[in-house]
């Protein structure tokens, strides 16, 4: 029988562990510092986007989220689970009156809470700084961007958990998560662009391939929350706006949700069936 109380206990432990994790704290301080700096820079200089106040800062923070949150989410998810398995704490925990689902979900929610804290701190500090400067504007879009950043963090964490099911060593999990991060952040974009140019790929194909990347889903949906059109993304953005219109935001959000749910279920199924892996 599934007991949510066990999930809560394990999540609380994971949250506390994350807050004691030196690397996590460095990530958080760096993210918050850069968010604050971007809000200040955004106010003092023009950007290619015609935003003001919260909208301008949200636009700047999107790029920061695209770099930082996948890195933290992937590495935290993959190394935590792989590390617990490698050092034997996972096996010892599973020998207690808990089940796999409670353990995996507890760990997931605990780490998710710590990621939410990082995002909230970064966006919160930037938001407070804007308010102190007397800025107003699209606060709703700003908050929506925060929520979408939460979803991206969950998706990256799910992917990290899923990757942890395939590696035996923590070092491999770290290497794998950094590779996937590079793939999603840089190689994915450049690869699609390069392939599109060389093969003269139709614009709709470029769009659909790009939408397989959870980072692009976040980018599209968050831009849509702070402005109505995707013109800023060029011809692909124009195509997407024309083709999908108002349905694009819910579709991109559903895409992000699928990136959360599918890898997490996959990770749970793999861990439940990998008794020899856990108990090696």
């Amino acid at each position, binding site marked *: 029988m599934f007991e949510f109380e*066990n999930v809560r206990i394990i999540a609380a432990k994971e949250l506390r562990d994350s807050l004691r994790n030196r690397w996590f704290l460095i990530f958080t301080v760096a993210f918050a510092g850069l968010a604050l700096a971007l809000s200040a820079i955004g106010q003092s200089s023009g950007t290619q986007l015609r935003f003001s106040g919260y909208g301008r800062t949200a636009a700047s923070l999107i790029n920061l989220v695209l770099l930082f949150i996948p890195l933290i989410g992937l590495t935290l998810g993959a190394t935590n689970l792989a590390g617990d398995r490698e*050092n*034997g704490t996972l*096996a010892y925990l*599973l020998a207690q009156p808990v089940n796999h689902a409670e353990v995996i979900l507890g760990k997931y929610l605990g780490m998710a809470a710590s990621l939410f804290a990082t995002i909230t701190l970064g966006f919160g500090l930037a938001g407070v700084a804007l308010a102190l400067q007397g800025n107003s504007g699209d606060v709703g879009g700003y908050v929506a961007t925060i929520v979408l950043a939460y979803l991206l963090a969950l998706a990256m964490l799910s992917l990290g958990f899923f990757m942890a099911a395939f590696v035996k060593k923590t070092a491999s999990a770290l290497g794998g998560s950094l590779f996937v991060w590079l793939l999603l952040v840089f190689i994915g974009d450049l690869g699609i662009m390069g392939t599109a140019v060389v093969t003269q790929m139709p614009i709709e194909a470029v769009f659909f391939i790009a939408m397989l990347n959870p980072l692009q889903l976040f980018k599209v949906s968050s831009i849509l929350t702070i402005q109505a059109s995707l013109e800023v993304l060029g011809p692909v953005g124009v195509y997407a706006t024309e083709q999908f219109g108002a349905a694009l935001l819910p579709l991109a959000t559903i895409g992000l949700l699928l990136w959360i749910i599918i890898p997490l279920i996959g990770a749970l199924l793999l861990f439940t069936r990998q008794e020899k892996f856990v108990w090696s």
Partner: protein
Amino acid sequence: MITAKNLTKRYGEAFALDNVNFTIEAGESVALWGANGAGKTTTIRCLLGVHSFDGELMVNDVDVRRNSKKARRMMGYVPQEATFYDMSVLETLTFYARLKKTPLPRIDEVLAQVQLADHSRKHVNALSGGMKQRLALAVALLSDPPILILDEPTANLDVAAQRDFIHQIQALNRQGKTIIFSSHRFDEVMALASRVLVLDKGKLTLECPPPALVEKLGLQRWMRLWIPPEQRDSALQVLQSQGYAYRPNAHTVYVRIGDAGKVAPLRALESAQIIIEDFDLLDGELVPSEEV
């Protein structure tokens, strides 16, 4: 009561357990005995319900395969080498107490029971191997389960820590707890077990009281003595004259421990003014060849 019927565990084509059947009554202390790979640890993992298996395994009328979590509520588990999260002793016990739905005041009781009360604020990484095993025992005892399962619990402990740990388990058995432990240490089995289940390549080959192991398995106990080189020949003469089986080695002498126990050859050498610099026991070793 624990019953296993046709307990079978396969890894691909290989059988880790092959149609194992046994019954363990409440209050018994049962040793799972066998060489590495015999199936001791696999049996324990099946009992805990953390390994899938074929056959039937019942713990106090709970079907382990169908409700392993409920079965685990009745069992406390001490692994060979417990690994804990990055917390203090008290935080560790609090975490597991919450998972086991144990009232937090119980933590003080188990800390006192395993003699870790003075170390509760220590970080787990600051504990010695013996203390870590005692902490694992404390975790196992939190919910006061009727059954304790121990997987080679003293394998990584020094002699003094082994003795302390065994005394604690003996006391728990006297209090009525059912003890199931795996071991390949003959001394441990003799001290703790009321019955031995002998496993060999996944099969249960023998069930007997511990003293019968010596006879039924041709098991002999040996000790290794460190004797100064200048007294070595004299020592061998004494051992021979007293009828002890022995085997000289490069720097040591192996002496078989007979029915008179391990002190007898030591006393014989001591009374002949032979200095014994050190000794250790080769628990559960099969008969060494080239016996003299």
